[in-house]
């Protein structure tokens, strides 16, 4: 037994590194896993399905009359706002999921497997994009039932969805950072909600900035949520597009530049 080097059965020759194709396959497997999880966690399904529908209905019928004279008049303004708000909240699941994996030891198991180092994170983010697309579809669906109509071309609407998904991708890094810093998944949710509520509400997502005191208006006008809501409105309903889209993309790039390195740092500190 002097030369009995242990070998994996069936594997034959061991490979030195993961091929990009295998890495992609592993990423999709891990994305599948994140989607399947939802089946056993109806609470999460509610968060990115029923909750946005509820928001549309409540905001529309409760505030519509006061803000725009009637729910029908408010809906076109409101719907893009709800889509942006919901998009930010859904990204928090990336961080919650990562944190759960780290605290439960699942992350160690994944890292001990011969899989691409980046696949656990990439799998999460791809699953997040699926959830995002599903949420947007639902919100638009309920909007259409209530009388919302696109005023632009299909291409323009798809560009709007692409912009939202791109921003979600960038904002996922914030979620990853919070997920790596937080003690437990509950803390991720808490920090996420505490930060996201003011950011989404102190914007033009639900109410035009002009109606606010001037000191608040200043903040609202630089808030990326405002730019993103304006860009979505422009791409779905018509109106100025170039400026809000540019600002949204600049914000997305800025968020990645700051939070991707921070996340990597937090990740190394944690594992």
């Amino acid at each position: 037994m002097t030369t009995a080097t242990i070998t994996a059965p069936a594997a034959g020759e061991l490979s030195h590194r993961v091929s990009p194709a295998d890495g992609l396959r592993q990423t999709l497997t891990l994305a599948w896993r994140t989607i399947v999880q939802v089946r056993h966690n109806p609470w999460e399904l509610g968060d990115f399905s029923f909750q946005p529908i509820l928001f549309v209905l409540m905001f529309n019928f409760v505030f519509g009359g006061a803000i725009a004279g009637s729910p029908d008049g408010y809906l076109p303004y409101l719907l893009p706002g709800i889509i942006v708000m919901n998009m930010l909240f859904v990204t928090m699941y990336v961080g919650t999921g990562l944190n759960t994996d780290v605290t439960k030891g699942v992350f160690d198991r994944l890292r001990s497997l011969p899989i691409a180092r980046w696949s656990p994170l990439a799998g999460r983010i791809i699953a997040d994009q699926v959830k995002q697309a599903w949420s947007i579809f639902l919100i638009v669906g309920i909007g259409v039932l209530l009388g919302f109509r696109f005023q632009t071309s299909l291409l323009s609407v798809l560009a709007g969805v692409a912009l939202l998904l791109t921003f979600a991708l960038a904002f996922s890094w914030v979620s990853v950072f919070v997920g790596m810093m937080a003690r437990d998944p509950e803390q991720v949710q808490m920090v996420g909600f505490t930060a996201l509520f003011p950011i989404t509400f102190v914007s033009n997502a639900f109410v035009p900035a002009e109606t606010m005191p001037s000191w608040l208006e200043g903040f609202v006008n630089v808030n990326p949520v405002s730019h993103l809501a304006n860009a979505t409105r422009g791409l779905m309903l018509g109106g100025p597009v170039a400026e809000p889209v540019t600002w949204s993309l600049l914000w997305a790039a800025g968020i990645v530049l700051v939070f991707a390195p921070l996340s990597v740092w937090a990740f190394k500190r944690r594992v």
Partner: protein
Amino acid sequence: MTDHAIWAEGLVKRFGETTALDGVDLAVRTGTVLGLLGPNGAGKTTAVRVLSTLIRPDAGRATVGGYDVLTDAHRVRQLIGLTGQYAAVDEMLTGAENLLLIGRLLGIPKARAKQRATELLTQFDLTDAADRAAKTYSGGMRRRLDLAASLVGRPPLLYLDEPTTGLDPRARIELWNVIRGMVSGGVSVLLTTQYLDEADELADEITVIDHGRVIATGTPDELKAKTGSQSLAVRPEDPSQVPIVTSVVGELTRATPDVDGSRVMAPVSDPTVLPAVVRRLDDAGVVVTELTLRSATLNEVFLSLTGHPADDIDDTDSEGTNS
């Protein structure tokens, strides 16, 4: 070194001020079980994490299956199965989905991965719970699922990091049987444990570590001979007879007995000492109210190996709580 599944020399790992590993040497011969025995905070989990490529050592060198854990980590990962201190299963997935996930990640085609999952669920007596989310499982079931998950790819080397911590005695013995079954199938195992009896039951060789240093190595029998695997306690009815008891026990066990009140205690490595003690005390006319022989605790082993009791400090290298 190719007849060694694991070969590690001079491993050092520091976390800030804490030195978790302070020059640890380890060797696991292919096809055998090495028990890594030590109290909380001894560095057991850190050693496992280094050897499973999860963290990089600050110094020293380790090969797994002949491959360097630093420069050939991906090959090492193809050889190992890891079962951590906490059951690392996805609670939101069913048992079957957990195993399918691992199989798919290892590149096993879907149909075969499903078949392998079914096989393992049967082997680990989880068939009835296969389609329930793992969050509904009991502690013992989770451990079994976790162990099953580390076996999906039939790895030739298994790391079992305190696999029975927190399990009830029945589940513990069941898990021991499972581990024995795997070893008879030719798998090499690095087993960490806080329990002397567990290492004794399962390990071919034992390495005892404390404060990140190896303090003893040997077969279970060698260690027992060195430290006394059991502990004898005798209490005479008449406290004035303690000196007689002490001399009899000391002579027969060839150890210096501890006296606690009227109770005389000594480590024993040969169980035939017990009848001899009974005869001698009877001859001397000593009536005893207590006479027990029990397994030595890890503390007693530590006491005899290091001269100091095992400090029960928190394990700096294990983030999780035992469940």
